[in-house]
């Protein structure tokens, strides 16, 4: 995938229910995320941020609109174009509020499993997992089970897992909610480093306004409407970094 855009959504709309129970969670949301760009998505609870991530992550089909990832149109309204699960494991990384590690796998196995799922030999997937954990500063905890890791360490392992398939897009839903401000900032900076180093597009849903300077672009969402944040409109421009696609 060499398309300069990691993600492009157009007119994304999601409606739950029908008739008098109809709820419009997402209204005509359009977004472009370049490779290596880190995007923050702000908004109050219930604004539609998570719905947007689920649609973009090919987990929930939108009612209308398109989702194009790495130049490939994957979702056209409710119609899926291709094997979404396969596309997810090969091109998308997920990080969520709770660390969401598989409880019966050790830290390294949680990362390794992604490599194996995309068809890498076990030894290669393990080596790659080791490198990622080392790079994220949790290499020494590689053989610990998730319950033996602190919240920050778990989140780092989750980030390593999200990177294991060398995705073109990482989707993070409030990844710092369970962390203190120092740890939270570290994780945000981690996303920026990853995005800039690997040319990965990153969308982070966050309530944490203290680390907004980390992001290249900031969007706000309210009542399902997506728009560039007024206060940081100047930031809503393509990143100035020299991105090398891996």
């Amino acid at each position: 995938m060499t398309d300069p855009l990691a993600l492009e959504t157009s007119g994304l709309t999601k409606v739950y229910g029908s008739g008098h129970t109809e709820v419009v969670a997402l209204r005509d949301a359009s977004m472009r995320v370049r490779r290596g760009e880190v995007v923050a998505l702000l908004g109050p609870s219930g604004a539609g941020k998570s719905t947007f991530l689920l649609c973009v992550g090919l987990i929930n089909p939108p009612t209308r609109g398109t989702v194009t990832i790495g130049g490939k149109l994957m979702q056209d309204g409710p119609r899926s174009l291709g094997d979404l699960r396969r596309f997810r494991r090969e091109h998308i990384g997920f990080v969520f509020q709770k660390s969401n590690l598989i409880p019966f796998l050790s830290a390294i196995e949680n990362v390794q499993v992604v490599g194996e799922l995309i068809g890498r030999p076990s030894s290669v997937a393990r080596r790659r997992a080791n490198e990622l954990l080392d790079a994220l500063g949790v290499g020494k905890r590689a053989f610990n089970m998730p319950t033996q890791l602190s919240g920050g360490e778990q989140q780092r392992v989750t980030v390593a897992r999200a990177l294991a398939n060398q995705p073109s897009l990482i989707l993070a839903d409030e990844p710092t909610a369970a962390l203190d401000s120092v740890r939270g900032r570290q994780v945000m900076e981690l996303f920026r480093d990853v995005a800039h180093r690997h040319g990965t597009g990153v969308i982070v849903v966050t309530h944490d306004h203290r680390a907004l300077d980390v992001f290249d672009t900031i969007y706000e969402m309210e009542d399902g409407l997506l728009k560039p944040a007024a206060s940081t409109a100047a930031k809503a421009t393509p990143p100035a970094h020299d991105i090398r696609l891996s």
Partner: protein
Amino acid sequence: MNLAVRDIRHNLGRFVLTTLGVGMLLMVVMGMGGIYRGLVDDALVVTRGVGADLWVVQRDTRGPFAEVSRLPRSLVDRVAAVPGVTDAREFVFHTIQREHRGKPLRMGVLGLGWPTDKGEGLPLIAGRPLAQNHFEMIADESLGLGLGERLRLGKDTYTVVGLTRWLVASGGDGIACFTSRDAQAIQFDEPGESIRLERQARRARADEIDFGRTQPGVLDRASGPAQNLAALPGPAISAVIAHLMPGTDPASVQRSMSGWSDVTTYTGPQQEELLLKGSVDRARRQILLFRVLLTIISAVIMALIIYTLTLDKLHPIALLKLIGAPTRVIAGLILQQSLIMGVLAYGVGYLIGTRLFPLFPRRVLVTNDDLLRLAGIVLVISVLASLLGIWKAMRVAPNEAIG
């Protein structure tokens, strides 16, 4: 990376205990099968051991294993004279219960047709066949008698000269083999007082008739042993067993005897069928049905266990779906766990069973065929049990990992 093994390792204690429980259940299934086989085998052990081509029994009875059959000893000579019969022997069989070492001792008494049959064909594990016409016995080890041990039965004392293994009656009682004369002596043993009273009664009856008063010799005979009275029958035997010449059709010999109004004949297979459809039929069917029931219960319990284990993994399964794990990986996780549990439980059941079954009071005969069949059933159960879990896993949405 094998996810099933990783998950088992993570919940090892629970998995081990569950497998142990299922294993015990499979052991019971295995045991019920063994009891069923043992019952059938025990029922047939005597008839197969005797190996008769024809059984001649009292008219309109089903033979000595089903009901009382009484025949005169002279019938042996009549049967031996039938064309096609190579030899005929008397068969005496009955069950007794006596006191031995302060405990009840119940045994099947089998009479061997001395001198042609001394017990050489019996499954001896120690000692020797009978060497004399009287006062020796071959006992099954389940009776708890030792070689050389002496046992008083009736008025005589018998010495154990040989031991057999698994020579038991259809009721599970160990069998002791005597010469047929001794077997009859044990069967028709009467206390001395009873014999004296019977002789006095005979004398009194003779006194009351003219023949007795005019013939003093008759009165003397009436007071003597019953065997000296031609008017009284000798001790009856249970059946006559006949062996036929090679190539002789048993049906043709049966036809030859069909005109005899005092006997009924059965071939060896017919006698076995009578046994299985008669005395042990209900017990056999009951155990068979119970076994089928247990197998179904095992399947249901395994399915529920695998389903519950799957319910505990719904979040990781949703997570696996979220990161794009294909269906075969998730189904494989559940199926492999089910198969591992089934195989290990089978092994546990087998190991415990083989150590426990010999301690049972009746024989538990676990055959290789039954073991293979059960192994196949366990595999099928494991696969079926996992289907419920897989069905549940397939319904989990990946976004459930986020909530």
